[in-house]
Every structure is written in C-alpha cells, then in structure tokens.
C-alpha cells in the first residue's frame, strides 16, 4: 500500500491542474448537495420531530355541546389510538387595545387542567400552567430571543368579556390546538361555545382523505351536526414544509446538475490521466505493480483532491443552508432545530468522494487491462487517428488554417469530446434554467408590485408621536387631492374565525379602487367580487386552507356571523400575511357596531407615470405629519433569495464547467505536445496556436449552447411549477413566459463564453510551449 500511496502522491503532484479541477468541482458539488439535502431534510424533519415529541393531534375537533355530551365524546373511540379532551372552548376577542400582540385578535381559549395528556402534550416553555381562576397561559413559539425582543414579552394580562386574566405562562402546541389556555375553573366564566377533542388515529393518516375518513369513523355514532369544526395536522405540516419546499425543486435541480457535471469532469480527468499516463502505467507494471495496484493508484489520485474539496464543501454548504433554514422556520415553533443534521454532514463528506471514485472506476479499468509492453510502447509509434474525413475536409476549406485545425481537434478524441460537450451542455442548461428561474420570480414579484400599490400610507398610532386626526374618508380625500395620485385602495384588515377551522383567517375589507389596483387583473380563475356577500382569495391561501371557487364560507367576527361565496382566485394578496379580499360593506354586514380608529386603516396608492415615489411619500407626510407614507415597491425577499441563489449557483456551475473545459484543453495540449511543437517549428505563431486550441472547444460551446437552451427551458417549464406547487401557489401563464430573442441569443453564446473562458489558460500555455523541449523529449 505504501508503494501505491507513493505512486499516487507523485501522480497528484504531476497533475496539478487536474487535481485542482477535481478539488474545486468536489467543493462546489458538495456545497450545493449539502444545502439541498439540508433543505430536503428540513422540509419534514423538524415538524415530524416536534409532532412526535408532543404526541401531536392528527385532528383537532370542535363539537357543539348542545348536540353532544362529554360522555358521548369520550365513548367514541373508533380508530382512535389516543385522545385528549373533552375541553371547553370559546373564541373571544382580546380587549387589550394598547397591546400590539393581542389587540383585536380573535383567540381560541380552551379550559384545560394540565399541559400533558395522551395527545397534544404542550411545550410549556416559560412560566407555569394556569391552575386557578384569573390565570391564563398564552400560545407562542419557543423562540426565546424573538420573544424577549418582541411585543409578547410585554404582554402580562389578557382581557376578555371584561375579565382580566393574568398571564402566568407561555406554551407551544404543534397541533395548533388553542391560542390560550385557562384552568377549568376559569373557562365557565368565559361561556364556552364548543367542546374540543384532540385525536391520534391508528392506520394510515398520510393523506387528507385518510384523516377525514378516520374522523368520520369517530363521529359516526355521534348525533348529526355535532362536529362543527376540525383541523388536520397535515395543514400545519404543509405550512411548515411550504417554504423549504419552495426552494427544494430548484436547489435540487442545481444539485443534480452539479453532481452530473462532477461525474463527467472526473471521468474525463481520469480517462485523460490514463491516456496521457499510458507509459507511466507500463512502467509501474514493469516494476512489479499489480493491475489492482495500478487501479488503486489512479483511484487514490482522484480521491485525495475529492476529499480535499468535499470537506470545505460540506462546511460551506452547512453554513450556507443555516440562514435559509432558520429564516424558513422562524415562527413555526421549531426554529431551534434548524441546521444540517449529522446524516447530511456525513452524506456531504462521503457522498461526493464516493461519486468521484465511481466516476473514476471506468477509465481506471483501462489501466487495469493494459499490458506493460503495450503501455510502454504506446506513444513511441505513430498514432492511428480518428475523425480523418472531417480533418481532411477542413484542410480544404478557406478557413484560416489555425481555425480549421482547431475545428478538427474534437474529432480526434471522440470520447473526450463527448464528455466535454456533455459538461458544456449541463453548464448551458444550468445558466438557461437559472435565467428562466430568475425571470419567473421577478415576474411574480412584479405581479406583487403591480397590485401592491407603489405607496403605502398608514396613520401613525398615537403612541408613536404625532397622529392624524383625519377619518379614513378624509385621509382618502387628502390623498386623492395630491398631485400624481392615480388610484387608491383603502383597507381595514382584521383576523376573523372561519367555521370549521380553528386557525383564524385574515380579511382585508377594501373600498376605493381595489380592483383597479391590479388585483382584478391578476385573477387566475373566477371573477372579481360584485357584492358584500362575496370574497376573493389569493391562490396560496386557497390551497393551504383547501378552499375551492364557489365555496360558501362562514366567517365570524365580533360576535357576528355571515356566509360568503368565494368567487375569485388571485395570484397575490394585499401586502402582509395572505388574507381574503372582501368589500368594506361586508364588514358592516358582519359586525355593524365595530369601532374603527384612524390608525386601523391602510392605504395603497398607485401614482401616475413619471411621479417620483419618494417625492410622493414626502408630499403625503408634508400634507399630514400624522400619516406615515413609504415607497412600497421592491423588497420581495423570496425573489431576492431565489434570484441571488440561482445567480450564485449558476455562476459557480458555469465556473466548474469552465474548469472541465480547462481540463480538456490541458489534456489535449498534453497529448498533442509533439504536434504543437511541430506546428510551431514550421511557423505557427503563438496566436495561431491559441486560436487553434480555443476554437477546438468554442465549437463545442456553440453546439452545447444550441442544445442546452431547449433542455434548460424544459427544466424551467417543469421545475418552476413544482416550486409553485410546493408553495401552494398556482402560477399565472405570464410567470412562465420569460424567454425573449435577446435573452436566447445571449444564452446561445453562453456556451461559447464558458468554453473560451475555460480554454484560455491552457491554450496560452500551449502557445508558449518551448518547441525544443517538446520535439526532443521523444
């Protein structure tokens, strides 16, 4: 083994360029692979871990206590493996106007004696449980740092129905079973309207249909209409997986492309090393190396740089994934688990070197087969070349001779040419895909910008200094009177309860030019609302809540209840958390007595062409210092992350592809040292040598450009909708229409650009070859 190691070490030293190429390729591929795997793992693992630890409920059900007794509920156990409850439940509205965290929020309050139990074991992460009347435990994610710096940390009481409860603890439920818990002694005073049951089921619970079927099994023997609402754990799981899921399809695409490029380049490097080291193989065998040892030398030669690249690649990937993971899971309650797990690290450290070794095995077998005599004599005889007809035809053309010779070079080594072409093809595919992806996310952001209004205006709350004394209609009139105003939408946004769902929903009650702001134009399906009994929903909200067009949805707000028809599906909603659109008149229908303060309104303004947005915002503040106005365009974090990542990854992959080309040209120059020396000896100038070597791969780059563009476009066509699906979004057609002739022209040249960039260095060194050395080292 010592001899193998010494020979491999010498081979590594002799092939500095190839060694560096393998190390860099391994580094890049490992880094992207680790990011992809970490996200893949993160898409399900943190939720699953927390769900298992808390014995999360497969279904949280609310029953009508008028129709069903507690005894009936505890007796209904068909298909149930565990349950908690019955717990009295009521939806209340917090009466804490000065509390940013609680003000106006509808809260599901449950009376529960302790945080444990068979199902939904709460994570009471701060304080203690509410054991007496007058005490309450509030729900919040266990993000200590965020909590301490956020408004929750200042919340010490909760006032409902005129009763003030003291906050004694904070807990987190992975099942989302409640917003607040009180002792059984307290709940009666809050007049519960429902009974909560928390179930874990036996059998298949992996699909919505399966969970619904399990719940039906439980309720079969109960009185009709007893079940008033139910929430499945899959809804929460999908929500948790949505963000990492959005990144996954394209990150995986980059990862797979990177690994393919790595395999091709490594295969090319090793086969090149075998070809150029044939005499070396012969010498090794002649001095007693067994065929197996020769293969071991070649595999060690590639494993050393592969490991050298994989180690920093794994660290880089794990660190690169960290911010994405913690951003993704912030607020979901298990952010503290975000980070690449040990198996991801292990896969990074072992996976890529393993792939590199596998890619090297095939060419290394050739070294195994060659006999010593055959290997030693190779190179001293005139080689039988390939692609002769092409070379002949090219020599008869009027192309400059250096160009003709360069165009003929790829035909001399068809195997190497095929691998180089494949590398370039993947490089162009990556660049095309990344270009399309960036185009698509920019389109999504543009849709958001178009409908989001260019200027946001909100009256300042009195607590923050000068506040506006104008009513919402007066503010609207003031804005309409300002020069440059084109359209205004006025929104009152509030959370409301939806019958059948424990999680509240945001509703944007709008008036003014809401439809004309662009929301109507971005309808994916259906139509804009025409009355106070109709609502429109953004696609993401519809998918996450399982809404369908035509659904009749019952909404409760401030004690009022009203049923709406869902008539339209838009791409995006009002800036902020996704919410339903409803007419302002719908608010009066739901809760006619609601008191509205000026600070409760949000104004979206679109200005006429040529109006300076910052200037307009300044004009608003001058007109009424109590109004806060800001430029609301841009700043789409998702678009920034995706565009940034895809740009960085495609540049890296293009660089790796260029390294592959560099390797090919370096190998070609090495193989053709004698030819290059001869050409120079008969008068070929260094520039002509450079031209010849660059032309040999530029032609491949052009071919890769022409073939890679359709493949990249195809990948874009399949992957982007997948990402949309993972984010629960339907994408409008314009999001996919990102290709235009100028862009395609540039992409077609990208293959040539990558090839030329990769070829320049070895081509220059070929041009500088010392003829005397080359021709006399026979």
């Amino acid at each position, binding site marked *: 083994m010592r001899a193998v190691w010494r020979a491999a070490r010498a081979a590594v030293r002799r092939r500095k360029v190839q060694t560096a190429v393998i190390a860099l390729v391994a580094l890049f591929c490992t880094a992207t692979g680790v990011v992809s795997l970490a996200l893949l793992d993160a898409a399900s693992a943190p939720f699953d871990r927390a769900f298992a630890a808390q014995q999360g409920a497969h279904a949280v059900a609310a029953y009508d206590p008028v129709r069903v007794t507690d005894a009936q509920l505890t007796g209904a156990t068909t298909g149930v493996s565990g349950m908690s409850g019955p717990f009295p439940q009521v939806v209340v509205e917090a009466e804490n106007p000065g509390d940013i965290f609680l003000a106006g929020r509808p809260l599901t309050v449950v009376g529960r004696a302790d945080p444990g139990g068979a199902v939904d074991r709460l994570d009471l992460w701060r304080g203690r449980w509410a054991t007496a009347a007058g005490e309450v435990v509030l729900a919040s994610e266990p993000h200590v740092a965020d909590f301490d710096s956020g408004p929750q940390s200042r919340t010490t009481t909760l006032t409902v129905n005129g009763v003030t409860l003291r906050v004694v603890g904070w807990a987190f439920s992975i099942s989302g079973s409640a917003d607040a818990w009180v002792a059984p002694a307290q709940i009666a005073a809050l007049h519960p309207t429902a009974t909560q049951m928390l179930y874990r089921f036996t059998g298949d619970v992996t699909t919505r249909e399966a969970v619904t079927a399990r719940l039906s099994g439980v309720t079969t023997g109960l009185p009709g209409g007893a079940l008033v609402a139910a929430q499945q754990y899959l809804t929460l799981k999908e929500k948790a997986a949505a963000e990492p899921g959005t990144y996954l399809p394209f990150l995986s695409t980059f990862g797979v492309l990177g690994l393919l490029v790595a395999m091709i380049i490594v295969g090319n490097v090793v086969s090149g090393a075998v070809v150029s080291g044939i005499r070396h193989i012969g010498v090794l065998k002649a001095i007693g190396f067994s065929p197996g040892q020769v293969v071991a030398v070649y595999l060690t030669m590639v494993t050393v740089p592969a490991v050298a690249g994989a180690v920093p690649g794994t660290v880089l990937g794990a660190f690169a994934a960290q911010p994405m993971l913690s951003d993704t899971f912030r607020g979901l309650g298990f952010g503290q688990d975000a980070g690449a797990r040990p198996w991801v690290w292990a896969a990074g450290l072992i996976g890529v070197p393993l792939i590199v070794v596998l890619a090297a095995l095939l060419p290394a077998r050739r070294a195994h087969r060659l006999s010593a005599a055959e290997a030693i004599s190779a190179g001293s005889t*005139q*080689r*039988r*070349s390939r*692609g*002769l007809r092409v*070379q*002949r035809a090219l*020599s*008869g*053309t*009027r192309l400059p*001779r250096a160009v003709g010779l360069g165009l*003929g070079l790829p*035909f*001399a080594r068809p195997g190497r040419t095929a691998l180089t072409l494949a590398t370039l093809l993947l490089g162009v595919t990556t660049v095309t895909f990344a270009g399309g992806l960036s185009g698509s996310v920019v389109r999504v952001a543009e849709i958001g910008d178009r409908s989001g209004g260019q200027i946001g205006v909100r009256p300042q709350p009195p607590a923050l200094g000068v506040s506006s004394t104008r009513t919402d209609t007066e503010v609207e009139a003031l804005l309409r009177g300002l020069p440059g105003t084109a359209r205004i939408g006025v929104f009152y946004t509030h959370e409301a309860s939806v019958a059948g769902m424990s999680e509240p929903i945001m509703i944007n009650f709008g008036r003014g030019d809401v439809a004309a702001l662009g929301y109507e134009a971005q309808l994916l399906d259906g139509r804009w609302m025409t009355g106070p009994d109709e609502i429109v929903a953004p696609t993401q909200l519809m998918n996450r809540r399982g809404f369908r067009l035509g659904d009749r949805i019952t909404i409760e707000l401030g004690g009022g209840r009203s049923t709406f028809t869902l008539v339209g599906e838009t791409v995006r909603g009002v800036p902020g958390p996704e919410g339903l659109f409803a007419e302002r008149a719908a608010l009066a229908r739901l809760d006619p007595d609601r008191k509205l303060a000026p600070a409760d309104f949000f104004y979206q303004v679109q200005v006429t062409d040529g109006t300076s947005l910052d200037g307009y915002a300044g004009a608003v503040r001058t007109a009424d210092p109590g109004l806060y106005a800001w430029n609301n365009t841009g700043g789409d974090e998702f678009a920034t992350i995706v565009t940034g990542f895809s740009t960085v990854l495609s540049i890296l992959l293009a660089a790796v592809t260029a390294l592959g080309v560099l390797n090919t040209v370096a190998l070609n120059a090495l193989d053709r040292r*004698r*030819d290059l*020396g*001869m*050409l*120079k*000896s*008969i*008068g*070929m*100038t*260094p*520039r*002509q040598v450079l031209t010849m070597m660059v032309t040999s791969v530029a032609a491949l780059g052009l071919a890769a450009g022409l073939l890679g563009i359709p493949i990249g476009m195809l990948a874009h066509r399949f992957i982007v909708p997948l990402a949309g699906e993972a984010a629960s979004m339907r994408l409008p057609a314009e999001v996919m229409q990102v290709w235009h002739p100028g862009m395609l022209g540039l992409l077609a040249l990208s293959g040539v650009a990558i090839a030329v960039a990769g070829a320049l260095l070895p081509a220059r060194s070929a041009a*500088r070859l*010392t*003829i*005397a*050395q080359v*021709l*006399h080292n*026979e």
Partner: protein
Amino acid sequence: MPTAGGLRSVPAMTRETIVRLGGVRKEYGETVALDDVSLEIRPGEAVAVMGPSGCGKSTLLNMIAGLDRPTGGTVEVHGERVDEMSETRLALFRRHHLGMIFQFFNLLDDLPALDNVALAAQLTGSKPGPARRRALELLDELGIADRRNVYPAALSGGERQRVAVARALINRPALLLADEPTGALDSRAGEQVMDLLLDLNQIGQTLLIVTHDERLAHRCASRLIEMSDGRVARESTLERL
C-alpha cells in the same frame, strides 16, 4: 528512387554567411549545454554536427532554428538576429526561411501525407488549392506522390521522412535543418533519405545535419563540426563518399 533534380526552387544564395553564431552559451540550471560556441555556415554548404550524447549538438540546432534561446552570445540566421526576435516574429521567420526535419518525423496523425505537406504552405497564407498543388509536386519529385492520400500511421519510416522533407521544403527555405534524420529508419530507408539530402545540397540547398551517423555525415556533408561538452571540439572539411 527519383533524384531531387526537379527541386529547382531553392532560393539564390546572395549572402556570404547564412548562419553566424558568436560566443553562444546555453545553460539549463546548473548544466551548461553550450559554452562559447562560434561558427558560420555559408550558403550552399552541407554541415554535419556530430558528437556524443549530451554534447550540445541538438541544443546548437535549436539555437539556430530559434526553438530555444541562448543564455548568452548572438545567433544570426539569414542576416537576422533570431536570439532577439519575439515568439511571433520567430514563427514567421521559421515559416519563410527555415525547413526542419526530425528523427521521429513529427507528422500530424490526423492529416494524410499531402495535407501534412500543404499545411506548412497554408500557414504562410497560401490557399488550399495552390498549397496542395505545390505539395503534390514535391511528393512527386520525392517519389511518393502515389502515397499522397495515405495517413502517417500507414506509411513506412522512409516514406514518413520523405513527407517530412517535402513539408520542410514547401516554403523554399534558405536553410534546411535536420535532427538525426535517419535515426529512426532502417538502413534501406536511411540510404534513401541520405540520397535525398545529398541531391538537395547538390542543387544548392544549405543543410545543417545533426547526427550520430558517421555514414550520413560523410555521405551528405562537406564540413564536419565535432562537439564535446558543449564546445566545438574540431571542425574539418569532408570528402563526400
């Protein structure tokens, strides 16, 4: 074998010396390959350089051909200082004024004999048609026109060397440099190449032959330079065999 009597394109010799080396020194690290070498070659001469392996004879040829640069001294060929030329200028100079043949022929495997010869002309800007016509003339005169479409791998050693000679001559060089031209050939093929070189010299082609082969030197050269340890040990005039 046909004589090279038809090769009437050797340029007229108008200069007194075609090669002039003054105190040339070449070092490779610690090793001195050439040490204070001075010599002159006149137009029409056939000079053989001999000596044991490592004596510096190939290095000397490299200096004259501009394939390598001296560490010290001057190298003048065809009236121009090749040791001071840029790489590009050197390439153009070689293209127009020098022809080279090597021990291992150094033909391009990818091109048939005709295109190997024509290639050198095409590098000077000749169009494919005229370059091939001229290459065919040369191959014909060297007796291998019937092998014009054969690739190097299928040619015999002697045929390959004749293709190499044709390539070296296609641009009508003032000086033909030969580095062990018979070193890789069997005796019969070696004889043929010797005849060819002799014929070339007899029609006025200036030759510089680096060789181990005394028969070649005595057959083709009119002057012998013997080298030892990087120095010119002895110069003598030869009576051709």
